[in-house]
């Protein structure tokens, strides 16, 4: 004998579980977007603060402006944004908005770094790579280049990597593309104001990067290791000082 009620009851329970899963997933996905937005807001405040500090530079000596002026959260934000994009899809309105916001923050950070370098000289000169990619299936090497840049960032924590979605509809990115003469051939990398088209390995990029980055990174990590053993609370201060000193000495 068939118990029709049980079939209906089972359907109700199954639907309820699916609905709960759907709502839970949406809830956590929205939380993720909120988290990214919150990080972006913090970065915006950081950049605004740095810009304000920069405006005051005429009255403040360069030595008072440390590396911390540049927002350290940008790289982790990039990872989280990638995760959000994978979760919600590249076409999702929130994702597009976050990517545009992220791109603008990167450009502001980049401009601020350059201004800082101009004002304070080589000691404050940031080393960065501007990277244009596409994830619309028209860039076979972009995935590989992403791995290379992630690895470079691990090797050289001081290296700043600004990545831009070539296809993102944002006039500021279009201007960057025009300045660096980036066409649709991707991946495209800008190092020391020179544009390189096509895939580059870790070794190839290391050759293109200025030596100061490598010296600074090695010295900073060595110094960190020694100080951690001797007196852990002094790590941050000492490491920062070492980076600044080494960079100056090298230049």
């Amino acid at each position, binding site marked *: *004998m*068939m118990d029709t009620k*049980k*079939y209906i*009851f*089972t*359907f109700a*329970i*199954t639907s309820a*579980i*699916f609905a*709960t*899963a*759907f709502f*839970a*997933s949406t809830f*956590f*996905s929205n939380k*993720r977007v909120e*988290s990214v937005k919150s990080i972006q807001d913090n970065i915006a405040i950081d950049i605004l603060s740095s810009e304000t500090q920069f405006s005051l530079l005429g009255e403040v000596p360069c030595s008072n402006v440390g590396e911390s002026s540049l927002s350290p959260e940008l790289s982790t934000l990039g990872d*989280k944004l990638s*995760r959000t994009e994978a*979760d919600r899809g590249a076409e999702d309105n929130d994702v597009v908005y976050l990517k545009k916001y992220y791109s603008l923050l990167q450009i502001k950070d980049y401009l601020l770094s350059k201004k800082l370098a101009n004002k304070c000289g080589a000691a404050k000169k940031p080393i960065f790579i501007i990277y244009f990619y596409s994830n619309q299936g028209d860039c076979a090497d972009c*995935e*590989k280049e992403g*791995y*290379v840049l*992630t*690895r470079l960032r*691990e090797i050289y924590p001081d290296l700043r990597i600004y990545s831009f979605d070539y296809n993102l509809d944002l006039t500021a990115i279009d201007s960057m593309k025009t300045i660096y003469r980036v066409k649709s051939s991707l991946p495209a990398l800008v190092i020391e104001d020179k544009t390189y088209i096509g895939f580059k*390995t*870790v070794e190839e990029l290391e050759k293109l990067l200025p030596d100061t980055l490598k010296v600074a990174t090695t010295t900073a990590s060595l110094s960190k290791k020694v100080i951690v053993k001797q007196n852990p609370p002094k790590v941050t201060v000492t490491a920062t000082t070492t980076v600044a000193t080494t960079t100056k000495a090298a230049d």
Partner: protein
Amino acid sequence: MIYPILHGLMYPFLFISMYFQIFLLTTFFENKKKIKHEEKQKSEVYPTVTIAVPCWNEEKTLAGTLDSLLQLDYPKDKLSIVIVDDGSLDKTLAIAKVYEFKNPNQIKVITKENGGKHTAVNLALASSTSDLFGCLDADSFVAPNALRSIVYYLNVDSTVMAVVPCIHIRNPRTFVQRIQAIEYLINIFFRKTYGELDAIQVAPGPFSIFRREVFDKIGVYRKAHNTEDFEITLRMHRAHLKIMNSHKALVYTIGPETFKGFFYQRLRWARGFLENALDYRDLFFKKEYGNFGMFMLPIAFLFVFYGLYAAAFIIYGLFSQVITWFTRFMVVGFHPHFPTFDFFYFNTNVMSFVTMVMFSMFLLALYVGNTLSDDKQEFFKNFPAYFIVYPFFVPLFLGRAVIDTFFKRRNEWVLQDTKK
């Protein structure tokens, strides 16, 4: 491009699978009291029983099978054993004769030319006059209480026409047998619940016991694509004959020891299922066949294709991940880091939640299966083999069975199946 399509199609299948799981679990828990009550009951009435033991080259296991039958807790004058040697080329017949000589009142040996299991069982059936008739494969063994437990169900309900036992893998030693041990454990839950729904899918070769009138009504065993046990079950459902499960009637069968043997056994089963289900397609979605026709048979048929689809989905996902790892390795080498805990990176999509719920329900069903049986298995020792290998093994034989059925290939592979 392929992945989003596979991903999208996964949801309806997940819904159906979860529906199926919930349906079975609610059925079990609503009948739990009745099931517990049955466990305490014992039959005091002993109808006459004939057990057929069809053998084909079973010299290694026949003696153990016969010993277990002789040790059954059942009046000796009510239990007959008919050994049918189906043209064995080894010492099977000699062993059978020794047992016949020692137990002339209980054991009878018939020998014939090889003709397949169904011919052997039918010969035993024709030579018997008992109230009940069953079969025990010569590589299976019964626990002493098995027959009494089964007979109880036939005694208390005259509408019950057949009773199937609770089957375990005997002494699982090899990796492949450990996989089967868990598979049989989950089947204990399925079989019990199907019994409560009057929707048992197969009255298996090892020790399913039938009333004689079943054969009078629907006829004897047929070749039925080398799965005569499934076919006779379909015929019983078509004739509205009720089948129950006795979860306390323990039967042990020797599972294939190697992947090759396991593959060919499952290929035969899956091919037999598909061919017979197609032969009996008139049962599908017919209300008169109750839960079996409306739900269990169609969903079992659907699951053959779902199993293939789900496997393709999982393998595609894993393959993509491996390609990603490989590409990264080729580009930047291997640089392991300590994983950092950040809730942000947790997978919180709908499929993850649904899969977690379904996996929990699967474990619950497994637990129920283990508690139903009197023989507690080495669950933790066997589960990893099942969990890691089985999902990749199933699509192999299912895929081949579907292809063979579609192209109507001949069944040469049956010869390689050691368990006929």
